[in-house]
């Protein structure tokens, strides 16, 4: 962890970059904020890299890479997929970014720790496979695996797909991560059960737009849901239709471009498993149009801007998966 901070200082000192994009300390050990550092002093004082650096930094590079000077960005495997996807869409000025790949052992989530019944956590330390939490009510221990954020429990890849330099070792894809298990489980349910499941989940939506605004794939200058002139603007979900409408379209608009970084679910204040919508599209495209991982490279055509003459017909839906009826 110290190595990352050292690298940040070194890059700035050597003049290789003018700014560094990383994570900044907060009030607690877990509330780290993405930040741009411009001086070594700032980095020494506030830069951190810890198991609580969940935030994906790639999206910030859309704006940052358009500014003057070069910026160093520390990208975890997930972030690197988003970065490549954004490059592919010509949203990032590549020359202005110096990518430092950092390996990740799975990021922790304070809400996962709290879900274990630990209250008032003020500090943690890792002891082997255990997180020891200092709390207002004494010390409590949580297995590291239980503290992992939901998406990290089914990590698709530890591979950093693009970097200018690498800290630590690069990892590999994990095709057996089981990230589609829950999707399959839902597909196997009856339509009634699925409907009930999603009603229950989506009805919690408060339309805060956090999922949209954090998503590296949602990089439109103006979102269709903010567009008053089109009549598609939608500020509060009045009923279940509008909840469904927003989430179907949100997921559809990133279909074929979503790298499955899981930020949408991480930021949802209501813990709606939004990644299950995105993963459904990923699973479908994989099954129907061949394996495709968004952000894995700069060349492959994304499934929704591609076709073959013998693609399946939409009627395939009537007979696919689940018992449906």
């Amino acid at each position: 962890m110290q190595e990352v901070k050292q690298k940040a200082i070194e890059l700035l000192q050597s003049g290789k970059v003018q700014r560094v994009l990383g994570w900044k300390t907060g009030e607690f050990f877990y509330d780290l904020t993405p930040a741009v550092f411009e001086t070594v002093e700032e980095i020494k004082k506030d830069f951190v890299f810890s198991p609580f650096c969940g935030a994906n930094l790639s999206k910030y590079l859309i704006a940052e890479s358009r500014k003057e000077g070069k910026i160093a960005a520390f990208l975890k495997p997930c972030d690197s997929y988003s970065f490549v996807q954004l490059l592919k869409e010509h949203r990032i000025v590549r020359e202005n970014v110096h990518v430092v790949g950092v390996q990740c052992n799975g990021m922790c989530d304070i809400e996962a720790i709290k879900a274990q019944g630990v209250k008032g956590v003020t500090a943690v330390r890792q002891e082997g496979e255990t997180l020891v939490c200092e709390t207002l009510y004494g010390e409590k221990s949580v297995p590291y695996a239980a503290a992992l954020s939901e998406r990290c429990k089914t990590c698709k890849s530890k591979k950093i797909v693009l970097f200018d330099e690498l800290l630590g070792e690069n990892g590999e894809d994990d095709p057996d991560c089981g990230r589609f298990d829950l999707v399959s489980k839902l597909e196997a349910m009856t339509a009634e059960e699925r409907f009930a499941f999603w009603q229950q989940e989506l009805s919690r939506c408060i339309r805060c737009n956090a999922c949209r605004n954090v998503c590296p794939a949602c990089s439109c200058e103006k979102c269709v849901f903010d567009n008053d002139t089109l009549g598609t603007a939608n500020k509060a979900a009045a009923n279940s239709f509008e909840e469904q409408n927003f989430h179907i379209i949100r997921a559809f608009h990133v279909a074929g471009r979503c790298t499955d970084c899981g930020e949408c679910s991480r930021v949802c204040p209501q813990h709606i498993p939004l990644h299950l919508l995105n993963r459904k599209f990923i699973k479908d495209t994989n099954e129907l149009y061949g394996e495709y991982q968004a952000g894995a490279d700069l060349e492959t055509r994304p499934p929704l801007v591609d076709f073959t003459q013998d693609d399946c017909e939409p009627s395939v839906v009537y007979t696919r998966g689940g018992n449906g009826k």
Partner: protein
Amino acid sequence: MKKLPITELDSFLKSLNMPVYLPSDDPSGQAKFTRWAEGVQLTQQLNTVRSAKDLFFPQMENLVDFKVQDQKIEIIEHRNVSENFVIFGVRACDAAAFEILDRVFLSDPVDGYYKERRDHALIVTMACSAPEETCFCTAFGIDAADPKGDVTAWKTEDSFFFRANTGKGEKLIAGLADGDESAVQAQQAQTREILSKLPNGKLDLTGFDGAHMMEKFNDSRWKELSEACLGCGTCTFVCPTCQCYDVREFNTGDTIQRFRCWDSCMYSDFTKMSAGQPRPTQLERFRQRFMHKLVYFPDNNDGVYGCVGCGRCLQKCPIHMNIVKVAKTIGGEGNG
């Protein structure tokens, strides 16, 4: 002081003979204010994800309908007259937030939709016994061990204790048996011990007042504070005191429904006009939210801050930027 065994809560709530809303866990395990019915359990969690403001100021409500035909317009008012209802288990912070909302909605001109619900509500607050590290209600002089409301409740191992604070509250718990206060006092002492140790409990807000408005407004550090802000509305929507709203219309094909819904000053379209945008970047929008809570609101409201220290934004902000960080960065030396 009245006492009620925990096991008899259901029969007590039933005996009230009016709708009761209490924080209960939904199937996803999160607490939210739910209308009580047989089988709805009071949550064990400290607080709800959404605040209790929903019950007075719902995320969305219809104001009035219109029917338009040629040059004629018909106005259809359909005011629901509220019946009396009870909000059970409101925490001290949320209860304090009602007073802040009152200053907005009940000041002239009075908002009738809000007032109607407010007038018909009976608030039973619930003292905290296990605050989280994100709590900082003490910074605003709120005593989580002894909240306000029509009735104050304490929950111990096996019993609820109730104290009426108003005539309305008196009536509500009149039928209960008397109980001994010592258990409550013991719990309060324990809670206050924890409250005194809250990491942000002594947040220093000196200097956040009308006199320092321009100084705070022009502070150069708003840039670094706001740079990571996503411009989402999470902080606003989970906040118990945020009250900005939008008035919009929906055409059902038959009538035009004019409704109001929560809005967020963090959104780019909040102040956007055909003539221009007075807050063009996220910096201005971000600054507005915190300046409003910490400077503008207290200056207009006898020094009462637009924050109650519930800690929801500390827990929920996707990038973990929050009012505590703002106050410590822009604010007084007392924050070390």
